[in-house]
């Protein structure tokens, strides 16, 4: 279903996940180090990267940052349960989602599909909000005529928020709509994604225009 690059240093885990994800219909390539993974990534960009954070050589955080610097390919990271250090670091490095190890392939597959679904369009057409133009059919965004490159998650978040300008979305609602997560979803996913989105579409003055924080409740789009 998707071309996946799996970067994982333990050979047996790597092979096991490859077998299981292939069974779910994905085309899985593997790499055992961060350097190797980045080489694979550049030689043939995959549709999605599954990244273990604990890697010899350059670690998963750095790999994630470099992938993020090179494009909008979604990254799902594998982390140890409750290792908040990993989660915080991974999200800050630009990961779209995370799955706790030992990862059940069914769960991982569900996360992969949810991320990839974010790249599918709706038929809402084109909306213009001041300098921002959001095309929900072709899934393109431009700011003052310049195209803005967004990851599928950032795009889906922007589409969800901008579909109803002024409406306040709780983190919980955004987790369900954008990440397709249940009631235990990690609200830091939302906060990190909002931050990355703001870097791309706001003017950086510290007073966001498009994605605004409603303290104690969540986020809303505008009013612009």
């Amino acid at each position, binding site marked *: 279903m998707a071309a996946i690059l799996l970067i994982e240093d333990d050979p*047996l885990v790597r092979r096991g996940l490859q077998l299981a994800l292939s*069974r779910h219909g994905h085309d899985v390539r593997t790499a055992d180090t961060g350097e190797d993974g980045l080489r694979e990534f550049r030689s043939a960009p995959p549709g999605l990267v599954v990244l273990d954070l604990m890697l010899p050589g350059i670690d998963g955080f750095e790999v994630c940052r470099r992938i993020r610097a090179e494009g909008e390919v979604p990254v799902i990271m594998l982390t*140890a349960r409750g290792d908040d250090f990993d989660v915080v670091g991974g999200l800050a490095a630009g990961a779209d989602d995370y799955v706790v*190890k030992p*990862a059940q392939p069914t769960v991982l597959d569900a996360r992969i599909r949810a991320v990839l679904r974010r790249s599918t369009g709706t038929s809402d057409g084109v909306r213009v909000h001041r300098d921002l133009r959001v095309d929900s059919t072709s899934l393109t965004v431009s700011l003052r005529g310049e195209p803005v490159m967004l990851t599928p998650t950032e795009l889906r978040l922007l589409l969800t928020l901008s579909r109803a300008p002024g409406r306040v979305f709780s983190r919980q609602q955004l987790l369900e709509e954008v990440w397709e997560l249940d009631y235990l979803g990690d609200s830091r996913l939302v906060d990190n994604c909002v931050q990355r989105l703001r870097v791309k579409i706001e003017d950086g003055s510290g007073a966001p225009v498009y994605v605004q924080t409603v303290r104690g409740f969540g986020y809303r789009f505008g009013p612009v």
Partner: protein
Amino acid sequence: MTRRPRPRGLRARLLVAFVLVTVLGAAAAAWSSAGSARTALVTSTQQRLTEAVTGRIEAVVPELRYPPDRAALDRLRAAVGSNTLVTYEDMRSVGGADTGLVTRELRAAVRSRNALVTQRITAGGRPWLLIGTPVTITAPDGARSPSGIEVYAVRDLAGVERQTDGLTRSAVSTAALALPPAVLLALLASRSVLRPVRDLRDTARRLAAGDLGARLPVQGADELTELTVTVNEMAESLQTSMTAMRRMQTDARRFAADVSHELRTPLSTLTAVVEVLATAADGMEADARESAELAITETHRLVRLVEDLMEVSRFDAGTARLRLEDVDVTGAVRDCLRARGWLEEIELTAAEEIVLRLDRRRLDVVVANLAGNALRHGEPPVRVHVSASREQVRIEVTDSGPGLPADVLPHVFDRFYKADAVRTRTPGSGLGLAIALENARLHGGDVTAGRAEGGGARFVLRLPRDRDPEDGRAGWDV
């Protein structure tokens, strides 16, 4: 039997004893020296007065004619001095107002013994010395014979009495003067004795408070020094064994953390491949399919056990952190039960919408554990009741089973404690309640186990409402 109140404390007792000994000693010494001085004074005065009387008699006697006439008696009396009585047979020559003090017994004694007799009496509140003596005539040939003349002299001893009173007063004042230095010395002595005792007490207190490095300086070679050395040795061995125990405990915990960490990698592989096995199981023959299903079930159990072990390790290492957010408690409990398909079996009642700042995932863990236990070990109906007071939020989970036996109750939160020794293979890891309790404590609350009114088990999770709202704001303000 009543006990007399005794001075409390070593210092007071030492002080009292020391002062008593000093003052009594000083008083006794002063008293006895005053006594002997008085005796010596009285004796010498008496002797002086007696000698004066006899000397004057002897000076006059050779001039007396015998038998004497009244004039002779008067001359003799005048020679002896005032307050003198001279008798010869029926004749009396009296001079002075106080001669009436001469007693009958004195005169009897002088007559019968035919020698000088003295007597001390007290009359009119004053001491007196009575001297009585027969006058002896010495013939020209040297023979001595009694003349029949008796001389009685009455002498006032008040002056001596005044002197001896002065001695007694000085004895008392000597004893009194000894009091302040005695108190001072007693204080000094008690301080020097008590300082090591106080140091020992302070050190023992520090040890008791957990400062195992507390030691006493060792000086001198008395009994207290021996005690100090013993206390130091005791502290040393206490510290050694405590350090060893702590190290063992830390090692054990680190070992558990390391083991669970190491197990996670192979479990990742297993978790991945058993699913492949599961999808292929339908095409297998019966034995192989059953084996595959067992492998899948046990792998999931193992995963849960390792996850619980790692969770417990984080609590032990103190690295468990809260991620607080405002949570609708009733809604979160309902979500927890719904996600596990338990809403049909469990009766959920809640007073009102209760919003509390807490870690949603940890609340979910606790509720899932308590409700899961009730469903597994108790009997329906299982009830979950959410209520709130001003101070706390209570989540009460009750079942209608036999309840927890009294001997099990104190251990339900122990790690790997299983109430029924036979039923060792429950789906739980044996850490569930321990983790639930740790999670509650992390929120400043607790979980308690008891009996429900109907006889079933009842677990109550209490979460305080007045936690510092500044805790764990991570992820809120972007």
